[in-house]
């Protein structure tokens, strides 16, 4: 009798366990579906957000001029190369910066020369009175930029150099991803600080001078090229023993 009771007890336990396992399996698959649905909803939300800035940005002051754009070199994909294209650009520096970044993404002459992911979009760009531009990109900039120091550096430099060559009033750039400060672009390049946007010595031919801040910085780089520098925020004086900033190689040549 005792044995029978013992077996029955274990049979009941095993049955309960089996039921629980079945319930667990159903819950697991249900959760998986829910997670994938959530991911899809996020993607849809991003796409709908992207649809708005992807529409052509135009203003009454738009004037078609030759813009200096920086994409990968046609011969080697280790460096950037300036390409002149005709673009209708606004006189407003913030709108002009948006138009330029949108053109960087959408008007690349050859897919092999792309620096920013095709799915990336500029959600918003703010230009502060001190010349700080804050560019807010969609998640795709972080998730689809090829991982690597070189590729991330080229992506950031293409934005920085293009802004430097075409918008005189931007002094430094902060990159956000979907409204948030992130540690890195795709695992390497630090996005927690600011990137210095140095104006070229001479504006490209046909490029009107935009309203700028009263104070212009002395050009720090020879040859009218931009050097990508990363600033701490806020800037701190160099520690004793640290040499003054030194021009590295020209950005368009090796970036």
């Amino acid at each position, binding site marked *: 009798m005792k044995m029978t009771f013992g077996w029955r007890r274990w049979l009941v336990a095993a049955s309960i366990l089996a039921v629980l396992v079945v319930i667990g399996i159903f819950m697991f698959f249900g959760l*998986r579906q829910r997670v994938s649905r959530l991911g899809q909803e996020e993607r849809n939300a991003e796409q709908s957000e992207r649809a708005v800035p992807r529409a052509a940005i135009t203003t009454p002051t738009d004037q078609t001029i030759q813009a200096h754009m920086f994409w990968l070199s046609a011969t080697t994909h*280790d460096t950037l190369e300036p390409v002149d294209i005709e673009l209708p650009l606004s006189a407003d520096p913030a709108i002009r910066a948006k138009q330029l970044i949108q053109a960087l993404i959408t008007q690349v002459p050859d897919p092999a020369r792309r620096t920013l992911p095709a799915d990336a979009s500029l959600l918003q760009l703010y230009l502060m009175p001190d010349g700080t531009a804050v560019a807010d990109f969609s998640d795709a900039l972080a998730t689809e930029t090829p991982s*690597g120091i070189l590729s991330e550096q080229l992506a950031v430099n293409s934005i920085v150099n293009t802004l430097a060559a075409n918008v005189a009033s931007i002094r430094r750039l902060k990159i956000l991803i979907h409204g948030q400060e992130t540690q890195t672009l795709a695992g390497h390049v630090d996005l927690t600080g600011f990137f210095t946007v140095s104006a070229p010595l001479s504006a490209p031919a046909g490029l009107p001078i935009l309203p700028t801040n009263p104070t212009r910085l*002395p050009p720090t780089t020879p040859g009218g090229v931009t050097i990508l520098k990363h600033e701490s925020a806020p800037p701190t004086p160099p520690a004793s023993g640290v040499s003054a900033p030194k021009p590295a190689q020209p950005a368009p040549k090796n970036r």
Partner: protein
Amino acid sequence: MLNRSRLVAILIAALCAFGASLDAVSVSRAQPGGQQSQPPQAPAPRATGAAPIVKPQSQLGPFSPAGPPPSQSPFFTENVPPLIVLDPAHGGTDSGAHSSSGINESDIVLEYARLMRVALEAEGLRVILTREGDQNPSFDDRAALANASRRAIFVSLHVSTTGTPGTVRAYSLPALPAPQSFPVPALNLPPPVAQPNPHPGLRDWNHAQEPYLDLSRKLAELVQVQLSQRFRGSPDTPTAVAIRQLRTIAAPAIAVEVSSVSVPNRGQLEDMSSPLAQAVAKAVADFLSAYTGASPGASQ
């Protein structure tokens, strides 16, 4: 009866635990990307005499790095053998750059680091790796290994997605912008003033690399010279890039990136491991003798 109710209670507890683990799975799946941090390794006890580094628990606000200038830092003055911290990037769930042919950056750089350790030890140097297997320590866990030493040199190893295959680049952080080059506010606001260090003698963890920028650039130059001799098409000079991993290292720190995972077969990248190890070992030995006046093996 008592046994039966106890059994039911155990089963309910097991169900709860199972449900909790499912929730954890769903949360981790819902947050793709980002660095997966392994349980932090026990940090090595910091040797006495080194300038302490403050890892802020709260946002204290950035402040100027304090501590001795590099020329008087323990890196030069302490008579301890240098420690080379090799950092095979990525690992664990983060494979880094990867190709359609199945080449993963995290695997390749671990092989590079192992061979480089042998080459550096042959120079009489002490070497540790930030990971020995397929783990992914956080940026700060990796930095902690170097920052716990009084005389470390940090070399982070990477393989890129792009770039001319067979070329290698050395990177260090860019120099700080000169204070006067900072834009002047247009709204009659006072210019930004660096906050005084609220903890004199301590350094801000987030800016730990700042006093070592010049040394890091010199190390990168020496490494790049060796790389350009061994890998045709590599640049002659290093590149200054804001790399997150290097920012929190309180020691000469560089990154070395090999191009690229787009090679047709893995063997091409593996063939680069030996000359890469020799290049870095030679450059580190040159750096130590040129900038610290000590030959690597002498302090052993």
